[in-house]
């Protein structure tokens, strides 16, 4: 294990910036922490319990141009826009978000491989940060995630006056070696490891008394897909939904997208990909119209995908990491915990 004094963190940021593009939680003008490129004058918020949004944009930007069509008379030229080459380092990734990237990998790296995602993902080194102050909206433990040990290339912990640093993967080792050679990181004594263990234990203790400590998605839900699909509870649950896209856009595992053309000028058209949301009326719109015409159907789609379809196709893994962003951000306080509990009550325990 290595370490660096908190006061010397700017030195670490600069060293990382020299290796690749560094992204880390910075406060935006509203005072929220969000992943942003490192700048000397940025207000860095490494200790923010959770960023406003996850870092999924790094691999899967909200909008990206895939192709440009250029016409000149009868000539047509195609130009593929490829993601820029170069290392990206994302620092301060929490355990929930780290798991979400593995879930996204299952979608984008399965054949047919999404080359745009793959390029960005392979160029990226993730530096995780162990949680020390989970919030009441946290429930990552429901998905077997250890808040104190993010599944990243490097794990770090802010403990006492130091940032403790542990390489996990080969990419992590390589990055660590560069920083050790550069004299940025120094070998930590045994007490650093003890401080980390102590923090991890403390975090677990807090999680065990928070309101969602015993929340779990009931596995029975995936056993009878049609029963859950036809549940009477959906209408009741969806009643308050505004059909906005907040939950899907702040969710670290939501990954639906649309591909469309935008004609900029007579001669130039962009084929772009953009985030899509199953809450939107035109989601998966086809020539015959929308396959889900009502709000209830669209609402059901989102939760069926996360709690039933995804685990059915991915060895039981739910498309949720318990980050709690939907609990914090939904304008009308609808969220996956509420839905999973209501479904369990209605369809597993049968006590509506």
């Amino acid at each position: 294990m290595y370490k660096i004094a908190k006061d010397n963190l700017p030195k670490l940021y600069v060293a990382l910036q020299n290796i690749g593009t560094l992204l880390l939680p910075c406060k935006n003008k509203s005072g929220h922490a969000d992943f942003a490129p490192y700048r000397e004058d940025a207000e860095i918020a490494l200790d923010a319990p959770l960023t406003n949004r996850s870092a999924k944009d790094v691999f899967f930007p909200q909008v990206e141009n895939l192709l440009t069509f250029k016409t000149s008379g009868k000539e047509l030229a195609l130009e593929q826009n490829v993601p820029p080459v170069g290392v990206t380092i994302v620092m301060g990734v929490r355990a929930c978000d780290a798991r979400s990237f593995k879930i996204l990998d299952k979608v984008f790296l399965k054949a047919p491989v999404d080359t745009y995602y793959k390029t960005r993902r392979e160029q990226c080194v993730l530096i995780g940060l162990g949680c020390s102050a989970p919030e009441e909206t946290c429930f990552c433990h429901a998905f077997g995630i250890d808040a104190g040990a993010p599944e990243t290339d490097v794990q770090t912990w802010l403990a006492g006056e130091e940032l403790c640093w542990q390489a996990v993967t080969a990419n992590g080792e390589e990055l660590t070696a560069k920083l050790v050679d550069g004299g940025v990181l120094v070998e930590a004594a045994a007490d650093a490891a003890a401080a980390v263990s102590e923090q991890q234990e403390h975090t677990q203790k807090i999680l065990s008394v928070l309101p969602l400590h015993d929340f779990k998605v009931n596995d029975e839900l995936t056993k009878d897909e049609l029963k859950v699909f036809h549940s009477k509870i959906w209408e009741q649950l969806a009643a308050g939904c505004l059909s906005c896209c907040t939950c899907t856009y702040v969710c670290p595992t939501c990954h639906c997208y649309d591909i469309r053309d935008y004609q900029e000028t007579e001669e130039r058209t962009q084929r772009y990909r953009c985030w899509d949301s199953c809450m939107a009326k035109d989601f998966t719109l086809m020539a015959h119209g929308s396959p889900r015409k009502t709000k209830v159907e669209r609402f059901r789609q989102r939760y069926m995908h996360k709690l039933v379809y995804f685990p059915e196709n991915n060895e039981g893994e739910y498309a949720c990491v318990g980050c709690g962003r939907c609990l914090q951000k939904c304008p009308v306080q609808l969220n996956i915990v509420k839905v999973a509990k209501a479904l369990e009550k209605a369809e597993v325990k049968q006590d509506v």
Partner: protein
Amino acid sequence: MQKIEKLLQKRAAELLAEGTVERVLAWHAGEFFYDNAPAAVSSADECDKLVYNEFCPANLCKYLIETSHAGKKTAVFLKPCDTYGVNQLLKDNRIKRELVYAIGTPCSGMLDIKKIKAAGAKGIISVSVDGDEVVVNTAYGEKRLAKADVLLNKCLMCKGAAYKIADEELAEPLPVPQFTGDKFAKVKEIEAMSAEERFAFWQSELSKCIRCNACRDICPACSCEQCIFDKPDTPVAGKAYADEVEEQMYHIIRAFHVAGRCTGCGECARVCPQGIHLELLNMKFMKDINSFFGQYQAGADSETPAPQVSFKQNDPEANSAVEGREQHV
């Protein structure tokens, strides 16, 4: 407000049981004590799960569009500020008066859990109000905060305890938050900026937008059947914003579209997941309408036409309105 909660549950159950209404719109509890959510109930025995306290910020009037479409007579519990939205929906012919049963629900200001947390309260178990103070019961003991410091921003511009539409009032009005400052102070601050500064301010605010449309979807003035930004085949389709300009256009176009119809309920800014000060755009329009056409409050009643859709001989000419701005301000 606990007394009011009991009255609310009782009245909702009565109205459903006697068949006065088919549906009731109110609030029910969330996962925690502070995340009460909009609730629609249609049977009297569901009414005991309805809640009412300082954490029921949502304005329920937008759901009336759906219930009106369904032809269902609906009782809706409305805080004083929420009643403006109902009037505006009536004025815009988006809901039917005979299908709405409006119940005035006293409010003494809604609390902002984010502000309570930001004030340093950790491990919060519950929150109660004691006069001008908020008592925060935490795992580490009791903490007292000034209520005025932890009210929702929208409550700092409280329009008073009067209901602008109500078929009945649930209880005696409660004292509402008193706001003594100039509600246009921030707008004036932005007006005083140079064009470059102002552009930079809005660029910085609006570039945070993730186009989730929550501001639009909660807005009682945004009541189009199909929003232009949802049309997949237009270059302005919401999901497709190609650059920051489109992002900014969305909010500016929306502000223009609701000008004269925005009641200043502040829900847009409250629900924004990115914390954008959207209310400032709308308030700029309100301030201009007041200075060009005389004092006007959208939603104060359901009849008076907005200044922009009515003509008076002394209305300023389009150009003079712009050129003469300084005199009007």
